[in-house]
C-alpha cells in the first residue's frame, strides 16, 4: 500500500518532460524575497476577489489563452480546464466550486464571514514565459481587481 507523502511535482514534471524529449527543463517561478501585504480591513468588512487558472468554457475561452473576467452570478456551470496540468486519471473538474470557491464564498457573505464577493472573477493563463505573466497578465489582473474594489484576492491554481 502506498504511503502518504507530498507528491514531488517539480521532479515528476521534469522527468515527464524529459521523457517527451524536451532537453531544457522548465524553470519554476521563485521569489528570492516573498512580498507580504497585511490586511487593510477586517475580513467581515472586506470584499474578496477570485483568480483562477481555468479559462472560460466558451468558444473564445477555449481557443485563446489570455486574461478573462467572468460574472460570478450565475456561477458558470463549467470552465475550460482541458489544457491544464491536473490529475485527469483520478478526478474531474465538473464541479466548478471544487477549484473556484464561488458558492462557498457566497455562503460566507450570507453568514457575515466576509463583507462581499466581487461581481466577477478573473482567469489568468498558465505560461511557459514568466515574463509574460509578470509583465502583462499579472498587472492586468491587478488592475481588474482594483476596478472591482477588491480588498483581498484568493488565487487558485489548479
Amino acid at each position, binding site marked *: *500500500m*502506498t504511503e*502518504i507523502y*507530498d*507528491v514531488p*511535482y*517539480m521532479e515528476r514534471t521534469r*522527468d*515527464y*518532460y524529459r*521523457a*517527451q*524529449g524536451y532537453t531544457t527543463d522548465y524553470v*519554476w*517561478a*521563485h*521569489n*528570492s*524575497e*516573498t512580498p*507580504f501585504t*497585511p*490586511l487593510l480591513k*477586517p*475580513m467581515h468588512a*472586506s470584499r474578496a476577489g477570485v483568480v483562477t487558472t481555468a479559462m472560460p468554457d466558451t468558444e473564445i475561452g477555449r481557443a485563446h*489563452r489570455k486574461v478573462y473576467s467572468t460574472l460570478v452570478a450565475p456561477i458558470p456551470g463549467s470552465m475550460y480546464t*482541458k*489544457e*491544464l*496540468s*491536473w*490529475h*485527469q*486519471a483520478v*478526478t*474531474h473538474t465538473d*464541479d466548478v*466550486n*471544487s*477549484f*473556484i*470557491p464561488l*458558492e*462557498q464564498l457566497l455562503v*460566507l457573505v450570507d453568514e457575515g*464571514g*466576509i463583507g462581499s464577493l466581487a461581481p466577477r472573477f478573473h482567469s489568468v*493563463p*498558465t*505560461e*511557459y514565459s514568466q515574463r509574460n505573466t509578470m509583465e502583462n497578465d499579472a498587472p492586468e489582473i*491587478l488592475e481588474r481587481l482594483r476596478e472591482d474594489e477588491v480588498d*483581498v*484576492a*484568493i*488565487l*487558485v*491554481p*489548479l
Partner: protein
Amino acid sequence: MPTLIMGSARDIVEHCGVPRFLYTDFPLGNPCGKPYDHAMQLSIISQAIALFRTATSANTMEQTPYLWSADNSWRDDYARVDDSNREELAKRGEARRKRQAEEKATGIERAAMIAEA
C-alpha cells in the same frame, strides 16, 4: 493587495514563495475541496479566510485536515514515467513539437502547457 493561494502542489508553491498558502493534500484539480462535497468546500474556504486573519508574515502555510482517499496510489500515478509508457511519451513529445512548429507558423504564440493524461 493581500493575497492567499489555495493549492495542492505544495513543493511548487513553496519553491515560488507566496504570502499565504492553504494546502490541501489532494490530486491536482480540486484545491477547494472534493467535487460536490459542499460541507468540505465550505470548511476549506473558511480556513482560508481565517488564514487571512492570522498570517502575519510571508510564506505562511497551513494544511487542511482532509485526505483524498484511503487508497494513496494516486500519489505514485501522477506523471509517472516507466517502461509501460516510455515509448508512448517519446512519440507524444515528437507529435507535440510538430504541432507547436505548425502553430508558430500560423502565428499562435501562447501554447498550452502539457496537459496531464
